[in-house]
Each structure stands twice: as C-alpha cells, then as structure tokens.
C-alpha cells in the first residue's frame, strides 16, 4: 500500500487529514507536564484557603510559585483547548455551529491564558 503514496507524502508524514500527529503529540506532551503541575496546583490552592489578599498575593509572588502557576496555566489552557476541540468535533454536526464553537473555544482559551499570564505578572512584579 505504501508504494502508492508519493515519497514526499511519506516524508512529510501528514496523512490524509494533512495535520500529521501534531495535535496528538501536543495533547500527550501537555499531559506529561500536567502530571506534575496538577497535584502542585491542587495542593497550593487548598493551602491558600482562608488567606487574605495581602498574604495570597505575597505567597503567589514567590518566584517558584509564580513560575509553577504560569506553567500550570499555560499547560492546562493548551491541553483544555485541544481536548475541547475533539469533543466539539465528535458531538457537534451542524457545520456552521461547529466552526463557530471551534473559533469561540480557540479565542476564549487564548484570551484566558493571556489574562492569566498578565495577572500572574502583576502579582509577581508589584507585590
């Protein structure tokens, strides 16, 4: 079978969907990062219960906490966007609605990630 494919197509490895395995790999790679970041996040958030504004801000402004929170936010936004894309592909069959939802999810998660980065930056640099 593979002989029927042009060598270029084989070399590019993009397959019939013309996307290759980039989505699949990105999902697994972000999953690997979240394997460590999610337990840290849950532990951190639970330990911050009851902290007032000044203490919470000072705690998150510590370099290690700020870096890990940035990593968590970026990995989870990426992973969530990729996952929601598949869920929409699987269940939404009206083309206009599917395209609208895909664009909405991309925009919402890009904006939420950027907003989180700005918020963490403000907390880290103005504490």
């Amino acid at each position, binding site marked *: 079978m593979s002989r029927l494919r042009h060598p270029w197509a084989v070399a590019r490895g993009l397959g019939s969907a013309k996307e290759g395995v980039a989505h699949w790999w990105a999902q697994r790679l972000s999953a690997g990062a979240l394997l460590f970041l*999610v337990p840290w996040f849950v*532990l951190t958030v639970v330990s911050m*219960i009851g902290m007032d504004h000044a203490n*919470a801000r000072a705690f998150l402004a510590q370099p290690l906490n700020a870096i890990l929170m940035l990593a968590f936010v970026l990995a989870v936004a990426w992973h969530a966007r990729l996952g929601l894309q598949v869920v929409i592909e699987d269940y939404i069959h009206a083309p206009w609605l599917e395209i609208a939802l895909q664009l909405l999810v991309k925009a919402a998660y890009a904006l*939420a990630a950027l907003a*989180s980065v700005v918020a963490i930056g403000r907390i880290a640099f103005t504490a």
Partner: protein
Amino acid sequence: MATQSRPLSPHLQVYKPQLTSVMSILHRITGVVNAFGFLLVAVWLLALAAGEPAYAAFLACAASLPGQLLLFAFSASLVYHLLNGVRHLFWDAGCGFAIPQVYRSGYTVIVLALLLTGLLWYLGLSVGGAA
C-alpha cells in the same frame, strides 16, 4: 447527514453500564469540567491581581458552601482525569489492553483518585492552616 427518520440501532440507554464505558465517559466529562474550571482559575488570578476589593468579592463567592463544593469537585475532577489519563498513556504505549488488566487498572484509578484527592486536601489544609 440523516434528515429522514430511519430506524436506529439500540441506543446507549439499553446497555448495562460497565466499568469500562462509565470510566471512559467520566474521562470526557471531567475533561470538559476541568476546561471550564480553568476559566474560573483565570478569574481567580485576575481578582487577586486586581486588588483587595475584587479579591474580597471573589472570596465571598468561593467561601460560600456552593463555592467550597465547587472547589472540591474541581479538584476531584482534576485528579480523576489525571490518573485516568495515565491509564490512557499506558494504552497509547500499547500496554494493558487485556480485559482483566483493563478492569484492574480501572479499579486502581478509582481507588487512587479517592486517596490522592483526600491526601492533597489533607496536606493542603495542614500546610495552610485553614482546617
């Protein structure tokens, strides 16, 4: 797309729920829950960055009973999706496909999810001193 009303094959509700199917569906549901939870995390960070009044308003919602239940559910959902995700990574590598193994890993994930959620809350509350 089918617009005519053709006869359908037996649908989901006629099947007895199995551990495998229920855990698979739960993986999707917790994934979507986690995705929405992230948006609340962004709101939390924005409120913390915005200043004292905004954070006080956020804490008033978060400290309410629904808010506390939501945080607990979100954490449990994250932990379940994480552990079942590890199960998926093993499957991606071609491991653990025999039916007895699938059930064993399934029960393991459920037990570990309960234990890890409890452990993280126990440790978090002890460290934070909010208990």
